[in-house]
């Protein structure tokens, strides 16, 4: 498995192939459409992330002192964002998750295209993932 830093760099390299926002958008949508499904039993209030305008459900679990994430949303774009976060964060140790600044998000030029509600939603997702690593 790639390290967290390698996973981030890979995403940055992938996005470097795209010249336009149009292409980046379509790639994120594709990632969203390929996101492995989340078991319906996790799509409840308990797993819902507050602060997202779209519905987002996040399931976190530990296995062998590593943390794993599964998630789903009614927005394909948000699912694409989740796919990126999962690539970087899922299967990492709590310390790795706590300490990363996720610099790839700025590096791929995603943030400038997010509306305030979408940006807050992304921040809420990251916060939840990091919180899980704290406990």
């Amino acid at each position, binding site marked *: 498995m790639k390290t967290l830093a390698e996973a981030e760099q890979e995403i940055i390299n992938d996005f470097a192939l795209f010249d336009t*926002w149009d292409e980046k*958008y379509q790639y994120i949508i594709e990632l969203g*459409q390929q996101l492995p499904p989340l078991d319906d039993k996790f799509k409840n209030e308990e797993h819902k992330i507050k602060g997202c*305008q779209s519905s987002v459900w996040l399931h976190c679990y530990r296995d062998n002192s590593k943390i794993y994430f599964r998630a789903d949303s009614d927005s*394909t774009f*948000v699912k694409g964002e989740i796919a990126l976060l999962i690539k970087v964060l899922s299967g990492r140790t709590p310390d790795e998750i706590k300490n990363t600044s996720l610099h790839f998000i700025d590096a791929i030029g995603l943030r400038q295209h997010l509306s305030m509600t979408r940006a807050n939603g992304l921040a809420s997702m990251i916060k939840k993932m990091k919180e899980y690593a704290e406990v």
Partner: protein
Amino acid sequence: MTAEKVKQVSMNSEIIRIRNDFPILQQNVYGKPLIYFDNAATSQKPRQVLQALSEYYSKQNANIHRGVHYLSQQASEMYEQVRVKVRDFIHARSEHEIIFTRGTTESINLVAHSFGNAFVNKGDEIIITAMEHHSNIVPWQLMCETRKAVLKVIPINDNGELLMESFNQMLSERTKLISVVHISNSLGTINPVKQIIEAAHQRSIPVMIDAAQSAIHEEINVAQLDCDFLAMSSHKMLGPTGAGVLYGKMELLEKMPPYQGGGDMIQSVSFNETTYQNPPFRFEAGTQNIADVIAFGAALDYLNALDRKDLLRHEQQLLQYAAEQVQKIDGIRIIGTAKEKASILSFIAEGVNAMDLGMYLDTQGIAVRTGHHCTEPVMDFFKIPGTIRASFLFYNTINEVDAFVSALEKGITLLNKK
């Protein structure tokens, strides 16, 4: 060529001429020509308004109503001239009935506060509608809380039209004020405000009109409407942000206490007693937004020089054409199908997240708005989280609608891929 066609061609050249006045419309975004369909949020500004702003700061800038010097007198005069322009634009009797505010929101808050303090008591009722912008809901909720009054809401039907029957039944001796949106920003519905005002006046109940959307599309005539208050925003009618208008009948304004205290709104101040100016100055505390008001005057001049009836017809064509084309796309449902509609088209696409689709349109250089449009109760009524809203202004074209519809189809296909 038929007469109809000749008219169409001359209309098209008129639109091209108008578009050339709007520098922002000439640009590309993401390498594609900008298509601006978010006019209900804010309109773009013609060169003439931008020039007025820079002229003012280059040549006249001074504080108004206070100085003996040349610049201050010039600035004061220009500012007061806009008051007269607004008076004429909405056909008010006197410029003293025109109060400058920061916009529709502040105008409504002013009335809720000052009218509330003067006239509303425990158990009294205020009536609004189910299609109000949050700006015409929350100020009344705040006021009803402090004055212990009750807020009543006129319901709507599935087309997004007011249930006038329910409205008529709602009127009582307890009703102190009715505040109604003229054109709904999320549904496009044009409300029968004249009918509402007549019914209310039979019981001597004053009516406030939220003209934030209508002021650019409709000719506003407060004398004919006989409304008691009317609010509008400069930025939605080609003018700068941060300026707006409250029109109020003098009989009412005179009886209302100030909204904010400060400079300019007083007659004299002492620690024993402070007395206030007459309207409108009583309601304009502190240094006003002089530059933007003056540039708003340039926007009114610009609008006055246009044939607004023809342009309204053009906007209606854009709306009808867009509605027809959009409806041909599988899974699209238009939200807001009132008989009387302004050029605002709200819709949802089955199985597609509205914001995802809005973002796709953005990638194509098309600006629309997605979400609840500050009308959450409307979304609750239709049981949807939000809509995609394309709102057209006279500078938009049929070609732009075509590009929008084809992008919409592509976006929906893309997002529907599993």
